[in-house]
């Protein structure tokens, strides 16, 4: 589509003029910054990028970028993103959303997007709470976290997205912290460049409903071991993970999903011959 080389763009050139609905201090502001920095780093033309989301605070992100975007319905961002990527393999596709959107209502799509391994990147801004509906426990919430909907806590063990992504076949698995803008941007760029389905869990605090998450910036730490391409090693590491290891944890070599729309071709007249009696 680009006939001449695009001018060099800064991160801010990937932002739209729309003011986010997010609360002051929300981790998602940093994620937006990281996403735009990653796109600038990769020198991607904004028109060749599609950011697709579901519903929730973090899912508001497409309209805050200057790329093509689709703010879809709750839990279905990955399905829409898959359709975009298969129809338009030339585009860089980024799916984004929150923990409730991706792991609860959209859980099945998460499993199958990992398994399908289409060449796209999925960013989950995980704050362990439903923020847009004002504070209910999500699949990653601690079992004892008290709320109006689940007084005294859910009593349920949290979902482990990275382990599930690995078991389901994701080809690139990383965790970052929103407060580490530069580090997150680098990992997003890395994920975009890695073939197949890349999954990034970004710990992104909700200062409104989970003020306790302000402590996250002290709890996160660089992964003590290097990334691996061995799923068995990655699994062992993730199973004993404290939830605050930051970095690329797994980088696989699975072949990406191989089907996509191509150029218009063929002759319907030939195809209809099969019906001739």
């Amino acid at each position, binding site marked *: 589509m680009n006939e001449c080389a695009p001018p060099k763009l800064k991160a801010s050139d990937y932002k739209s003029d729309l003011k986010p609905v997010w609360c002051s201090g929300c981790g998602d502001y940093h994620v937006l910054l990281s996403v735009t920095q990653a796109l600038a780093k990769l020198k991607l033309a904004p028109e060749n990028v599609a950011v697709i989301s579901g519903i929730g605070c973090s899912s508001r992100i497409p309209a805050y970028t200057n790329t093509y975007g689709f703010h879809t319905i709750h839990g279905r961002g990955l399905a829409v993103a898959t*359709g975009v990527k*298969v129809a338009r393999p030339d585009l860089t596709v980024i799916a984004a959303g929150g923990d409730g959107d991706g792991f609860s209502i959209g859980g099945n799509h998460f499993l199958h997007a990992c398994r399908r391994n289409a060449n796209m990147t999925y960013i989950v801004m995980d704050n362990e709470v439903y923020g847009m509906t004002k504070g209910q426990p999500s699949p990653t919430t601690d079992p004892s976290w008290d709320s109006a909907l689940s007084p005294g806590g859910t009593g349920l063990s949290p979902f482990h997205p990275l382990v599930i992504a690995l078991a389901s076949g994701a080809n690139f698995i990383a965790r970052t912290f929103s407060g580490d803008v530069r580090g997150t941007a680098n990992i997003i760029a890395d994920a975009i460049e890695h073939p197949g389905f890349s999954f990034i869990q970004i710990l992104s605090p909700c200062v409104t409903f989970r003020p306790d998450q302000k402590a996250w910036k002290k709890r996160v730490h660089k992964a003590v071991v290097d990334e691996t391409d061995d799923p068995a090693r990655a699994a062992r590491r993730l199973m004993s993970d404290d939830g605050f290891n930051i970095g690329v944890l797994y980088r696989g070599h699975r072949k990406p999903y191989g*089907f996509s729309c191509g150029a218009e*071709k063929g002759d319907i007249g030939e195809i209809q011959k099969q019906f001739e*009696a």
Partner: protein
Amino acid sequence: MPPNSKNRSVSLAMVGSGGAGVMTSGSMLLEAATKAGLYGLMTRTVGPQIRGGEAAALLRLDSRPVHCVDDIFDIIVAVDWKGAERFAAEVPLGPSSLIVTDPAAGDIPEILLASGARVVELPIEALASAIEDGRPNMVILGFVAALIGLSEKPIHKIITKKLAKKGKAAAATSWQAVQAGYLAAKDVTSPIKVSPVKGDNKGRWMISGNQAAGFGALRGGVRFVAAYPITPATEVLEWMSPNLPKMGGTLVQAEDELASINMIIGASFGGKPSLTATSGPGLSLMMEGIGLAVASETPVVVVNVMRGGPSTGIPTKSEQTDLNIAVYGLHGDAPHIVAAATSVEDCIFTTQWSVYLAEAMQTAVIMLSDQFMGQASAVIDPPANIAFMAQRLVETTPAEDYRRYAVTANGVSPMTLPGTPRGQYTADGLEHNPQGLPSTLMEDHRDQMDKRDRKISEFNYGDHWADVEGEKDSAFVIVTWGSTTNAVREAIGRLKDHGINVRLVAMRLLSPAVPAQFDAALEGAKRILVVEQSHSGQFLKLLRANYDMPGEVRSFRRAGPLIIRPGEIMDTIKNWRVQ
């Protein structure tokens, strides 16, 4: 009717529990009849079992095109009667009908015997066993072909062609079994013979409604399909899967129907005309996604092949009861299009038209088909190549102030596709302003709703909204839709032979309403019969809500799986006439 009447079609049923091969014999007979210059329609009635359940191939053959099932069956042949009582009511017989049974095949269902039909015993199993590897279904194929006066030549051709893969020995064995059947029929008086055929049968097609829907979609420009299997729609998807890549398209098997509808929304956002196919339960799951397509103005087509409902209902049998959910199932005010095919052949036209409408108006189209026509194989004259091709209003050189949802006179706004510089926007299910930015303003909601409604309600649907047939001044009008159209059309033909003129209005466009066209079609009507295959009268209520119907209105309706037959429509009109 006397035997060998030139004006009669032949209706026959081949019965045998799943695995007995009656569907194979049925298809072979249909193909052979086609080769002999006849038209035909083969429908199927099957139980819910994957293998071993009750099954019957139902054929109707004629020298004229065949679109519906007749009132009675002339011949019913059973390899076995296992579970046949579960569908015997779907195979009505008369005193002149013939029941052919193996003495060892079990008891003939009471309802069939009650018709007074003649019973002939045929040792099917014994005839088959006398041939090494001989199969009973081939014996009945030969027997039935002989009864109805079909020559051996086309049968031989089909067997040779179909069994080529299995080797010469298999073909020879089957042919021997067929001949045994022919021989056994020699001394049996048949209630009916096929009409003699004149002329050229070259170029005729044999196609099922589900294949036809897939073909219409492909011809109309669909290049992306997301698929989740469901009875009785799966064949649409299975036909498209190998054929899409030939045209540069592809099919993705989705993890569920929620994924299918949302994948096609994504692919269409990317610029590819997109479709999925499903049935009732899947359509229920897709509703939220269809609303997103409406709000974000992303063209998509959902082919819904109806089956008995509610819930899991009767997956293998037909009903016209997804009309309500198709028209009213979306939350909010969500203008979209509901179209319906009227025959196997029309599945081509209506699906292609649906693709055209979705793309032209950037909205969702639900195309309703049903199990009866979806899974029926019909022999048809080669269909016309129609002009409707997907054509979306695409903006390729957007100005600096490009607005994706600009309020335009006809409601359709030029759409940029990803990859187009300066055309970036975020599609949204949230209400938005003309730029596409989320908005809760009363004015934006009003303007955008007006625009989404206007583009659909003011579109020119031409003559395609319905098939309107018959004399302008007939006092009787039958209004119907979907596969029921064909029984009605045949009833109207027969009534004409009795000197009674009845007009047909078979609606292809169920939503939005087109009052001006409807009024014109019903002009002068004094008595209106509304015919549909539903218990609650969904279609009648849709008409009542949207249209003024002059004169007296009556409803002829019945839930599935019993098909509506021409004779009962004819009787209804005749009885009404003398009142």
